[in-house]
């Protein structure tokens, strides 16, 4: 094969910011939605639990059950994609050298992070919309004022869990990340205030669980969507976790 003269004549330059961000974020989101394990983790398990816990009275809950279950499933979905999913994806992306690949392009460093954040938030929006539609079909009636707080809590929760996911996925070997991210997910689901409310745990244990990102997000969403008053504590707890994890992750995250 021969190439006409001028085919590769240099014409360097940085792409448009909006286009870089959009393409990067869309690629990240599409990769998540195309990955079977990620779909199971971020969509199918939360959907199954939402329907199962609403329709099958294995745990006793105040009526309407769907109003009690939905906020907790939102919290689970956010933890699943922003923390476990992000950590595992980052661990393997590093293994495959994609961070270094992108770091060698004209993409500014801050966009390397921003593209991942926006891609992750897009997945969270899809999760929440899908879960909300299914909950609505089962008679979900959220507090109208609380919906505003819910948006803020979802954003803070996704950022805090996302920062924790990057902290884990950016520092360790891919296989170790995979194991740790799944174990933490399972522990937080059962004992971190998602399945069992922090408020129904005995004494000091309940207070401690409410300080976990999972406990704070679940309590906050529950407060917002059931009574319209989430209180200030969940916001503060999520901001602190997010800030601490981000600060630490900027020092520990490795490209490969």
């Amino acid at each position, binding site marked *: 094969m021969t190439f006409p003269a001028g085919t*590769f004549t240099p014409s360097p*330059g940085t*792409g448009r910011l909006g286009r*870089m961000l959009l393409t990067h974020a869309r690629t990240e989101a599409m990769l998540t939605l195309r990955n079977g394990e990620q779909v199971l983790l971020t969509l199918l398990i939360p959907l199954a639990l939402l329907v199962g816990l609403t329709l099958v009275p294995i745990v006793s809950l105040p009526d309407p059950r769907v109003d009690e279950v939905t906020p907790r499933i939102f919290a689970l979905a956010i933890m699943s994609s922003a923390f476990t999913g992000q950590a595992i994806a980052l661990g393997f992306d590093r293994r*495959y050298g994609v961070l270094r*690949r*992108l770091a060698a392009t004209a993409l500014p460093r801050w966009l390397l992070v921003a593209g991942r954040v926006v891609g992750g938030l897009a997945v969270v929006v899809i999760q929440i919309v899908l879960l909300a539609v299914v909950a609505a079909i089962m008679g979900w009636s959220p507090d109208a004022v609380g919906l505003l707080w819910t948006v803020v809590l979802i954003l803070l929760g996704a950022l805090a869990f996302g920062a924790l996911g990057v902290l884990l996925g950016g520092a360790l070997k891919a296989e170790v990340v995979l194991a740790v991210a799944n174990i933490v997910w399972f522990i937080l689901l059962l004992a971190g205030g998602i399945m069992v409310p922090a408020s129904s745990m005995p004494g000091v244990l309940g207070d401690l669980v409410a300080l976990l990102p999972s406990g704070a997000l679940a309590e906050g969403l529950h407060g917002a969507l059931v009574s319209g008053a989430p209180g200030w504590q969940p916001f503060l707890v999520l901001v602190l976790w997010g800030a601490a994890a981000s600060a630490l992750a900027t020092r520990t995250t490795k490209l490969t």
Partner: protein
Amino acid sequence: MSSAADRPAVEVRGLTKRYSGTTAVDGLDLSLPRGHVLALLGPNGAGKTTTVETCEGFVRPDAGTVSVLGLDPVTQSEKLRPRIGVMPQGGGAYPGVRAEEMLRLVAACAANPLDPAWLIETLGLSGSARTPYKRLSGGQQQRLSLACALIGRPELVFLDEPTAGMDPQARRLVWELVRALRTDGVTVLLTTHLMEEAEALADHVVIIDHGRVVAEGTPSELTSEHPAEAQLRFRARAGMSTELLAAALPEDCRVVESSPGAYLVSGPVDPQVVSTVTAWCAQQGVLAEELHVGRRSLEDVFLDLTGRELRS
């Protein structure tokens, strides 16, 4: 303007990099004029990748200075990166990404990219356009990585072992591409451990070993560093005395039996030397077979400089 254009595209002075006790690069100098192709040639572990990654800004030198397109690759990375194309060793892409998807992402980072679909087709990746990156063969991953390095129409490209893991057809294609880049005025710094590749592509070859430059020049300068130097190979009965043959030849001729029955005379091989060798063999009652006189190849230069033992 003219002063910037006259400066070399890559200028490395006294580069040193240590990794926990071992010195990967040890006082290396390098100069690559604009529009030229430089091959960094060396055995595994010679310091090629560390040198290239320093030029790309991924590795911070412990000592020495590195200037790429007049910029410091570490502190002025944001200015430098839009102007260079990088093909890292072993590629780099999301495990689940499709080739064209990855290339479009890298293309979006450039102001005036080449057409991704055209490049995918040119590199023979159309057939696997929907295959996830992790299921592509090593050679296909390499080709995608090369495409990512070229898509942004850079002034300068770094190709770290661009043909590693490729079949001969793909290797020919990469060679064509590098030649086309050179024709169009793109500066290329590539690493290879294939002498043939350096000889075929490069204007300048820098042979490095243990992090130091051991030889440099154009391929023809390197192979004819000693213009009189030539080699005479022949086959005859194994175990003849190389000392006796050397004694019959001019003083600066060296004689070795490189493997049983295969003899190599190197030095100023002229018709008289050839005649002396055949006559000496006749005295021993043997016929010198497969007699061949040749210039040193770049491979000989390389092996002479870096040794013939296998590196682990």
